[in-house]
């Protein structure tokens, strides 16, 4: 095939990039080589637009064993235990084929974790859909949820937490981010860096088919009216085979056979072999006729670019091949030596002894283009929302409308479709501020949560970026965990648009600032650009997945009220920031103004003091205040329990709605038993923490003095009816 302008364009490479390729090769590439460049140089694999900004993120810390750049991040949790975790997007495939897209998203992130020698112990997800009324939403939602469940349930890893959000910004481009967490021994972590010459390169797992060819390039382009034609590029997941592959890999990892191991994710055999060789500063030679194929007459081009799932590439120590093969035979998986490491620093591809491709590794990796894309600062709104101009509403109507909304209704109809308990170490699951997963056979546990605030990030990317890190930190604190590190999934629009690039740059600045201040480093992550359709970009949606440690798990804590007549303490200052709040969005469809600003000093002090109170067993239940403000947080603590609240009308109240629905940051609600109040106040005062005593718990009723009184069963009912109404929609 002649390499014409059209062929180059079809591979997602621009003319400048093509001429760079010619310079690097000192000749024209053939089609196979062009395909390989296309796979390695696309946004998804090369991070060419984001790299410059990602460098600013803090990635080191006392507990960090491995930061970004490997399959997943690794942190130390003591006693030779390590936690391996990462989040990744599968947005584009999930929009085209929701079930398989979401399922393979889960499969892919699990491989990233067990590749490093960790047994996966938990899955999380952050999924964003268009408005519930949009004609595609129902199908996409049901498909994605079944896909996530279908994969996780079958492989037997509990799905323990997540978030589901609706916003018209995702009407034509949904987001599906999956996160996996694994547990490894600190001295038994496996990396992708190749070492040594003439070592066997082994292909294990499923056979290669024609599915997913050019998947990574697809994920690096915007959607348009021809999106449906892209269906064949979506991979098909097989969780059963992944379970076998996981068990086989973990079995092989028990001895010292593996030099390096890499899963075949985006851009399949190409990216895995280049990655290994590039990190090891070696060459690699593959005999493609050896590749196990699912279909007849597959060409080298198809083999190198296939994104068939559940496959791994392993470089083995000499003499270990026989024993390794035995393990994969036991699990009925393919095990074929398809090549060797060389000292040529080249990727050499042979098919029946004829050289079909020959590319310097550096051309594919270190010399891949890096762009310093133009970006502009967000213009900030000067005007404040004038509350006096808004139509009057009753407190009761506002609270009930929010509790029954798509975004704030109870999501157990989703989480019940996931096995949350398999492996029998799930201490707290979805619904809690963060999930708690016990380390098997130990009395310590990790806490984990995923969070995003796309509305905040859209209004002011810098403060939005700052806020999500803090919110995540707060969620971990709220279950009594000491936050350790995060992974992030950065979902943005088209980076060639300076406004989008500006959102990206500023969000990263915000994330950096919080992570640095809170000593909460970023150890892994993923960037997903080109989320948009026909030039309409999604709201910037960075998602943060955090991990915290509970050193001794004695009495796990959550957000549900436990007793009658407890004292309710509100920690942190309430200013009544309503701009960008759920209240203004849900009740008035108003999206003006700036999001609330986080004061990092207060954030840190409040959080650390709350942790001290929890560690001293002084807190009965606790909830952080996030979207929806004080009123929604209190309702969430009451719904599903036998206890409500009696909240005193605050003195100096200027505006009821500002007080109860304002989204000021760094705040927590604590339920304190009366006999412990004195001790609690002493600790709060010692630490100079601002707090208010706002009321007490009571049986049966949720009450704001003089304003509102409702049976909590009624609130619970309202909070749980959204999905049934949604299901009843007819289109």
């Amino acid at each position, binding site marked *: 095939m002649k390499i014409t302008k059209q062929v180059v364009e079809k591979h997602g490479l621009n003319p400048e990039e093509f001429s760079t390729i010619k310079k690097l090769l000192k000749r024209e590439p053939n089609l196979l080589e062009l395909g390989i460049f296309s796979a390695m140089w696309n946004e998804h694999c090369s991070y060419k637009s984001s790299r410059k900004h990602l460098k600013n993120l803090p990635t080191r810390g006392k507990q960090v064993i491995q930061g970004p750049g490997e399959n997943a991040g690794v942190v130390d949790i003591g006693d030779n235990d390590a936690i391996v975790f990462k989040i990744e997007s599968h947005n584009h495939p999930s929009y085209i084929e929701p079930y398989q897209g979401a399922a393979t998203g889960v499969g892919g992130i699990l491989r990233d974790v067990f590749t490093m020698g960790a047994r996966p112990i938990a899955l999380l997800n952050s999924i964003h859909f268009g408005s519930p009324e949009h004609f595609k939403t129902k199908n996409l939602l049901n498909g994605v949820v*079944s896909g996530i*469940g*279908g994969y996780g*349930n*079958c*492989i*037997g890893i509990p799905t323990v937490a997540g978030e589901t959000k609706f916003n018209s910004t995702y009407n034509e481009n949904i987001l599906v981010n999956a996160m996996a967490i694994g547990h490894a021994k600190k001295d038994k972590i496996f990396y992708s860096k190749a070492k040594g010459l003439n070592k066997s390169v082994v292909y294990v797992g499923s056979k290669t088919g024609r599915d997913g060819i050019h998947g990574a390039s697809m994920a690096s382009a915007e959607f348009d009216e021809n999106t449906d034609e892209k269906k064949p590029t979506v991979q098909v997941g*097989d*969780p*059963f*085979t992944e*379970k*076998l592959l996981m068990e086989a890999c973990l079995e092989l990892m028990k001895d010292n056979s593996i030099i390096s191991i890499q899963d075949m994710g985006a851009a399949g055999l190409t990216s895995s072999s280049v990655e290994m060789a590039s990190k090891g500063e070696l060459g690699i030679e593959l005999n493609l006729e050896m590749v196990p194929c699912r279909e007849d007459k597959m060409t080298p081009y198809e083999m190198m670019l296939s994104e068939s799932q559940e496959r791994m590439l392993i470089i083995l120590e000499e003499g270990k091949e026989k024993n390794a093969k035995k393990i994969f035979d*036991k*699990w*009925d998986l393919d095990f074929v030596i398809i090549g060797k490491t060389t000292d040529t620093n080249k990727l050499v591809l042979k098919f029946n002894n004829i050289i079909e491709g020959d590319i310097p590794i550096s051309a594919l990796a270190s010399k891949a283009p890096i762009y310093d894309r133009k970006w502009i600062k967000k213009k900030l709104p000067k005007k404040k929302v004038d509350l006096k101009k808004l139509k009057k509403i009753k407190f009761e109507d506002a609270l009930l409308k929010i509790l029954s909304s798509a975004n704030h209704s109870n999501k157990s109809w989703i*989480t*019940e*479709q*996931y*096995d*949350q*308990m*398999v*492996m*029998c*170490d*799930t*201490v707290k699951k979805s619904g809690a501020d963060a999930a708690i997963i*016990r380390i098997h056979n130990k009395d310590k546990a990790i806490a984990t949560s995923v969070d995003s605030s796309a509305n905040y990030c859209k209004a002011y990317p810098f403060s939005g970026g700052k806020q999500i890190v803090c919110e995540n930190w707060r969620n971990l604190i709220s279950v009594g965990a000491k936050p350790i590190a995060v992974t992030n999934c950065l979902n943005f629009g088209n980076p060639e648009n300076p406004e989008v690039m500006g959102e990206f740059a500023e969000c990263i600045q915000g994330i950096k600032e919080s992570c640095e201040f809170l000593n909460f480093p970023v150890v892994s992550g993923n960037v997903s650009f080109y989320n948009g359709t026909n030039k309409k970009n999604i709201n910037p949606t960075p998602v943060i997945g955090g991990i915290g440690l509970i050193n001794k*798990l004695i009495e*796990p804590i959550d957000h549900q009220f436990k007793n009658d007549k407890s004292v309710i303490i509100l920690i942190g200052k309430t200013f009544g920031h309503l701009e960008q709040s759920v209240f203004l969005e849900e009740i008035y469809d108003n999206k003006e103004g700036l999001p609330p600003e986080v004061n990092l000093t207060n954030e840190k002090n409040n959080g650390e003091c709350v942790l001290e109170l929890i560690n001293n067993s002084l807190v009965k239940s606790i909830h952080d205040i996030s979207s929806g403000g004080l009123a929604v947080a209190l309702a969430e603590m009451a719904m599903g329990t036998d206890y409500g609240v009696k909240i005193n009308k605050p003195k100096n109240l200027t505006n009821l709605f500002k007080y109860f629905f304002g989204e000021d940051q760094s705040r927590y609600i604590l339920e304190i038993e009366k006999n412990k109040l004195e001790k609690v106040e002493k600790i709060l005062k010692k630490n100079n923490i601002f707090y208010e005593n706002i009321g007490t718990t009571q049986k049966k009723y949720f009450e704001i003095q003089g304003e509102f009184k409702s049976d909590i069963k009624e609130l619970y009912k309202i909070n749980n009816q959204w999905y049934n109404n949604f299901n009843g929609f007819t289109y």
Partner: protein
Amino acid sequence: MNSSVIVFPGSNCDRDVAVALEKLQFKNQMVWHKETKLPKSDLIVIPGGFSYGDYLRSGAIAGKSLIVSEVIKAADSGRLVLGICNGFQVLTETGLLKGALLRNNNLKFINRDINIKVLNNNSKFSGNYKKNQILKMNIAHNEGNYFTNQEHLKELIDENLIAFKYCSKDGDVNEDSNPNGSLQNIAGIFNSKKNILGMMPHPERMIDNLISNTDGINLFTSLLK
């Protein structure tokens, strides 16, 4: 007491049930599906999971595997066999238990804490429970909707072979407390000799107050008597 847990490719509650058995003083062994001989065991457990991916029909392929023919022989000779979740599905596929597990009537996977009532405590598996005791257990399945023919249903009722029924917190057995559409709210059944129990809820998930409760413990300790 010696126990064996059968491990199929795709089993994923095998470790969980092994942990429970060992915690409750069983001497347990894991048995790989390609084995052709069972170790000496008083109890054989077929665990939950997705044996062979459940791609054909839940439990269908596992029901034909090498080790299962040994399990059938052992069961016929009166050895105790417990099938949990996918294990229950496998047992119906082998014919050791009659009936079938259809898709949940809402057509969705369900993972939830539910209540079940002990209908028959006169068995090796349930002796430590009280009759009509209400237990809180966890279910996690796509195909847990038990169905059988009228003749067999009559046999189940007449011979008191229904082990557990789904019920409400207060013990009401009705449509509202039926999570998956099972015939007569059936959650678990015995064979006629009561040496085989198949159940959809997971007792191995209910042995630890830190993560759930301890309502599953008595099922295992009953066997130790």
